[in-house]
């Protein structure tokens, strides 16, 4: 058993549990601060210190093993700035990012965001890309962001990096990514009814015949 502190109260829990499971073992029936339980949704952003150590640590509760001496706190909700925008009216430029989120100019490069990212993303660097109007760089470097909001809670310039990055990715995906011509051709073909008869034929086949067709279909190498 190890001893940990959850929201100010001390508990003994078995060794080897994730922080999330340690909460539950201790009796918390969680509503907030829990989500996918697999590291994808960002619901369980957690801050902790060790007793006697001034340093602050950051983790996803579902992806981190509880250790003896942890003093744990969760962030059930943190307000995040997100102005309304209509993507189809925006230009994929740095001016757009600055127009929607002018406060990003106040970043003074303290790197707290990067230090607090449980995904180990270089948040400050992608925010710098946003400032420079480097949308492709912003989109690529922020791609693995799960929007847990730990950097939002810690940024002394009061910025919301996950939302800036999301806008950057949407601008890139819609306007800057090279177009997939084959996709648009296929959409038109389907609208024109090109495959209708072929599918109808399959629908009309007796089951035995359909099974034969399935078993004998060519598989792309």
């Amino acid at each position, binding site marked *: 058993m190890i001893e940990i502190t959850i929201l100010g109260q001390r508990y003994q829990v078995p060794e080897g549990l994730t922080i999330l499971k340690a909460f539950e073992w201790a009796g918390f029936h969680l509503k907030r601060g829990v989500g*996918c339980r*697999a590291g994808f949704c960002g619901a369980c952003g957690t801050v902790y210190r060790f007793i006697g150590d001034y340093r602050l640590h950051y983790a996803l509760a579902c992806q981190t093993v509880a250790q003896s001496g942890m003093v744990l706190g969760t962030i059930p909700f943190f307000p995040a700035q997100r102005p309304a925008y209509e*993507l189809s009216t925006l230009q994929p430029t740095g001016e757009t990012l600055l127009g929607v989120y002018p406060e990003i100019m106040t970043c003074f490069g303290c790197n707290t965001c990067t230090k607090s990212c449980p995904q180990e993303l270089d948040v400050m660097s992608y925010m710098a890309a946003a400032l420079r109007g480097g949308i492709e760089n912003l989109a690529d470097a922020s791609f693995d962001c799960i929007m847990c909001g730990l950097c939002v809670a810690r940024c002394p310039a009061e910025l919301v990096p996950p939302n800036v990055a*999301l806008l950057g990715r949407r601008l890139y*995906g819609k306007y800057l990514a090279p177009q*997939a011509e084959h996709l648009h051709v296929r959409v038109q073909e*389907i609208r024109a009814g090109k495959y209708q008869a072929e599918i109808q034929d399959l629908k009309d086949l007796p089951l035995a015949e359909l099974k034969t067709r399935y078993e004998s279909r060519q598989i792309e190498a």
Partner: protein
Amino acid sequence: MSYPTQIRESMTKVEVTRQRRLTETHPRLSAQERETILKKFHPDYIEEAFRVLRLGPNRGERAPRELADALEAPAVIRHVPELLNDPVSHICDVLVIGGGGAGACAALLAQEYGASVLLTTKLRFGDANTMMAQGGIQAADKENDSPALHYLDVMGGGGFSNDPELVEVLVNEAPDVIAWLEALGTMFDKEPNGRLRTIHGGGTSRKRMHAARDYTGAEIMRTLRDEVRSRGNGSQTSILIWEFRPVVELLLDDQGRVAGAVALDLDTGQYMLIQARAVVIATGGSGRLHYQGFPTTNHYGATGDGLVLAYRAGAKLSFIDTMQYHPTGAAYPEQILGQLVTEKVRGLGAQLCNVEGEQFVFPLETRDVESAAFIRECQERNLGVATPTGQPAVWLDAPMIDLIKGPGTIARELPAMVRQYKRFGIDMLNEPILVYPTLHYQNGGVAISPNGGTQLPGLFIAGEAAGGIHGRNRLMGNSLLDICVFGRRAGVAAAEYAKQAEVADFSLNHLENWEKMRQEAGLQDDQPAPIILPDYTRAQTARTIP
């Protein structure tokens, strides 16, 4: 953490055979062999895990015991008359229940078709299985592919039991869904010339699996969510979002039409009456019911609530006796037991190996067959790898991906998986990983028509809560697809229905009938449903230190 010694011995065998295996392809199973292995080893065929439903629209049909308990349960709401005297909290044209991918799609399209929309969800908007889908989304958009080939793959994968009308819609609208998601700003993996990068999934005859690294569902979900939020600006036709307010009951009018719902505010414990002309249930799956004691890949809130709501209101369910067990759930370390290891790992070329380091199954059989083969390898042949907790496992030889596709492929294509294993001391670039089937997907659900409609006027279903699209087994990449295809269709249909629907007095009279039916069936005062959230606390929790 890394691997303990006894596991390392077996891992060495995998490493020794790797070079040789690079040139070997394990043969696919024949139709006959597939049928045999399913019947003998797939959890759907374990008779004692199922029972017959004693009341409701599917009375006499079999369902997993855990689901049957929820479907037959008494309502959460106990004091109906008092509740109905409460003021109505919100009035809208279309109520969308569930904030995953299907709910977001339905909300967007309902709004585009002129409806005022309330989207209410159990946890946060986007807390859903959609967010966790890693591997990809299918669409037949390449020159050597066609919707007809996609149709054939879907039908064969589903054991030819799928509803052909639903499958036709699914495959025909797939390329349009990809184009729509791109127009919303979703970033799919592409070649420099714009061609979409695609690979195989289990049971596909063409490489039609589109991905966004291994965050495909997350990328789709956060894009859709951002778009919904963009439209939630309080104008007359806008989308209002409620979080931490799951629905616990549908409201019906005296004609049996759906007229709204009752939500429960998880923070305050208050019930909220919602009057709506049409309702879309997009509550997802039920992995958190842990059928047969399996761990699950599913989200914390995946407790099958939508099935319970619809069933109690009189809607028929289909294919509820079949669940999908994803073959590659993490089997080690214990902290991530049951979590998803995306099928994309196999799509990129990783093979399965037994304790001796030898292949025992073609890596891209359909999920039901693949899972059954893993179980056979461990149970019947006794060639599984024993982990310290007793959890059986087989090897998934991830490092061979970089040998086949070039160095850097794993890091580029599977960043989430690499990150997850690194957190627990395993280097997936150089070490194989241990996997075993995990409860993944509810193949069936509420029976729907191609526009998401049910036999209850005003009730529409989309996403994992719907049944019939995938028959008895879903192919990889067809769930992210179906939430978009049928989410959009349900949104349109609900908005159109709402335009002509009368606003009628709502009631909870069906609960009275339900209680009567329960009593006639001799049922006790069981745990109410929807279950809302699983309880993983201990009866005797940790000793608090004073």
